């Protein structure tokens, strides 16, 4: 079975909700929709306090090339356009809407009927995706239309669909593959058409045997299912390309250099809904889970719903909860504010007990190089850590810190319990600043 060539590790997957069907969460009383839910320029707000909006009304227009539209996920009245604290307690511009009824914009098809045909050409498809404000839903939230617009000089050869979901606990993509398999396959064909390619690989890890079986039985017309060996971080874009078509993205280069375009399963489903049903990205599936949670679920929620409501929907926080994590246990972030809303990139909410989150005492690095063999990008985490600790940021650039995908394999495997990723992340941000200021000078 295929997998990527270097680094990573295989651990227990804790998929507690893999067999639980997606549940529709009731529409909340109030939503907070951030104007920046994607990588790139924040959207520009085009509503004011007191405005009436419907589900699917554009409330924020893309603020640049790398940006995405933001739509209202409920119908009601805008009560505020002031900044609101996100899960980290940092205030971000947002639109707060009080819900009245559930009135959808005209032209949005809310029926469950499958529409298999798509007669649009490539440009029309990309325009529709761009209008719907679709971003990468695996967590990176990179605007999808940018990814589908192939830069001049490059050529797309195949589409790789990311059904790996290598983060432990998360099952949102798994459930979509099982429950929306036909829509996924139509979505793949739409994206293939947009890219002008005739091959598509859906990479799925072997712990989702039912999804592999179901999709394999239905796939046709250039789409093939690639079962992959379980290994974290296989869901990383560069690792997935390596695993599926055995090509490596050059350091500092874009994945398109290998001829592959990678899209997440959730994104494919959102593309299907946007292109075939005119539905903008106003809902997403969030896995709300944890070993001690009484009733973990996969919830379909409106974007902007408070995370505390999601927690209440699974039976509340268990008493021994020490951390609530936005995302999976490896790459997610502990939250300091659970009143923060769900965004386009919220793939899971995980409640971990004190025993699971204990930080062992740090010891000195003995240069055992476990982090080096764990790094899927072939970096030297112990060195980057030391450089960042001493604030030698210019030296980190030559050590390729910008290639780091922040997967956390280094810190996970470190026998000295050093906070490798914490420091590397700081160093990466500082190095990015240095690079950016240099580009501006030019």
């Amino acid at each position: 079975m295929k997998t990527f060539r270097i680094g990573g590790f295989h651990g227990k997957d804790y998929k507690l909700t893999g067999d639980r069907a997606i549940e529709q969460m009731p529409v909340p009383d109030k939503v907070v929709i951030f104007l920046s839910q994607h990588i790139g320029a924040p959207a520009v707000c085009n509503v004011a306090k007191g405005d009436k909006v419907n589900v699917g009304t554009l409330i924020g227009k893309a603020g640049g090339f790398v940006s995405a539209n933001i739509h209202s996920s409920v119908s009601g009245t805008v009560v505020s356009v002031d900044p609101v604290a996100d899960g980290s307690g940092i205030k971000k511009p947002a639109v707060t809407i009080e819900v009245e009824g559930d009135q959808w914009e005209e032209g949005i098809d809310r029926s469950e009927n499958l529409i298999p045909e798509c007669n649009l050409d490539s440009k029309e498809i990309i325009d529709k995706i761009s209008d719907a404000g679709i971003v990468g839903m695996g967590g990176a939230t990179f605007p999808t239309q940018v990814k589908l617009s192939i830069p001049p000089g490059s050529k797309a050869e195949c589409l790789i669909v990311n059904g790996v979901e290598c983060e432990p606990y998360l099952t949102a993509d798994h459930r979509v593959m099982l429950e929306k398999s036909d829509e996924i396959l139509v979505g793949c064909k739409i994206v293939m058409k947009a890219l002008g390619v005739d091959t598509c690989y859906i990479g799925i890890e072997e712990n989702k045997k039912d999804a592999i079986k179901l999709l394999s039985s239905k796939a046709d017309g250039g789409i093939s299912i690639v079962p992959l060996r379980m290994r974290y971080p296989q869901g990383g874009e560069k690792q997935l390309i390596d695993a599926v078509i055995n090509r490596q993205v050059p350091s500092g280069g874009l994945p398109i250099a290998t001829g592959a375009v990678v899209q997440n399963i959730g994104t494919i489903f959102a593309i299907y809904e946007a292109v075939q049903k005119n539905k903008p990205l106003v809902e997403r599936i969030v896995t709300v889970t944890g070993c001690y949670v009484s009733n973990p679920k996969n919830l379909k929620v409106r974007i902007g719903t408070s995370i505390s409501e999601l927690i209440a929907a699974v039976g509340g926080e268990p008493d021994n909860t020490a951390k609530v994590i936005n995302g999976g246990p490896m790459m997610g972030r502990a939250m300091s504010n659970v009143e923060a809303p769900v965004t386009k990139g919220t793939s899971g909410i995980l409640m971990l007990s004190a025993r699971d989150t204990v930080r062992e005492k740090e010891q000195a690095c003995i240069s055992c190089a476990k982090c080096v063999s764990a790094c899927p990008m072939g970096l030297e985490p112990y060195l980057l850590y030391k450089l960042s600790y001493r604030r030698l940021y210019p030296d980190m650039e030559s050590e390729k810190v910008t290639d780091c995908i922040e997967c956390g394999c280094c810190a996970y495997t470190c026998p000295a319990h050093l906070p490798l990723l914490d420091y590397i992340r700081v160093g990466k941000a500082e190095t990015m600043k240095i690079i950016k200021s240099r580009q501006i000078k030019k």
Partner: protein
Amino acid sequence: MSTLFYSLAILVGIGVLASVILFFVAKKFKVEENPLIEPTEKMLPGANCGGCGFAGCHAMAEALVKNDDISSLFCPVGGSETMKSIADFLGKTAPEKEPQVAVVRCNGAFCNRQRVNVFNGADSCIVESSLYSGETLCSWGCLGKGDCTKVCKFGAIKMNSDTGLPEVDQDKCTACGACVNACPKGVIELRKKGIKDRRIFVSCINKDKGGITRKACSVGCIGCMKCVKVCAFEAIKVENNVAYIDASKCRLCRKCVVECPTGAIQEVNLPPRKPVASVSSDETGVESKVEQN
């Protein structure tokens, strides 16, 4: 025996040959260094702290010797005295700067600022600030992980475990600025040390609106403008909901300290106040106070 002799002879031979070659190479490629640099470097404190902006004292000495105009160069550790003696030695005019000291502009001790969550991560302010807003509701103030104390080469700044805030020992502080650069929140500022080490400063940098600041911290600056109104010397300005005292204009009358409703303005090394009756608010009272100081 002969083996021993030969090996010794060969080794000695190589040694002699190498020394001869090295002697000529050293002559040929000798780097001429300005003879003034070495004595200048000796006059500098030798802390290699980087407070001057150069990599160390040698680089600073080079710059001092090379540049004709040294007014922009200053060694904060040595201070005006050192700069004057160096300038006399080099025959240049010395830059004059008043002695400075680092001040921590946050008074959000455990008793003043409630902790609403716990940071369970790397013991470092820069890591904590890269991840989230902090353990309290104030997203501007001191995070209390002590990055400033780790970078201080003079042991002048230490964490106080009772308050969770760093404290500066003004006798040890050389105003090199290492802590200022280390603090990701920009809490620490270099301020004029002041006559007789007396100074008044606003111990808060919270730019949130008054109500939000008040909720987060009992001693935060709420930008109420009271101090601005009471200041007779126009030394205080309120920008972005936070007051700032211009040390060059402040005449240490302490009216603002009394006026501040939250106690965000701090005085250092000022003598204890006389009984309330003598703290008059008219102009003459201010003048006499200033003279006393």
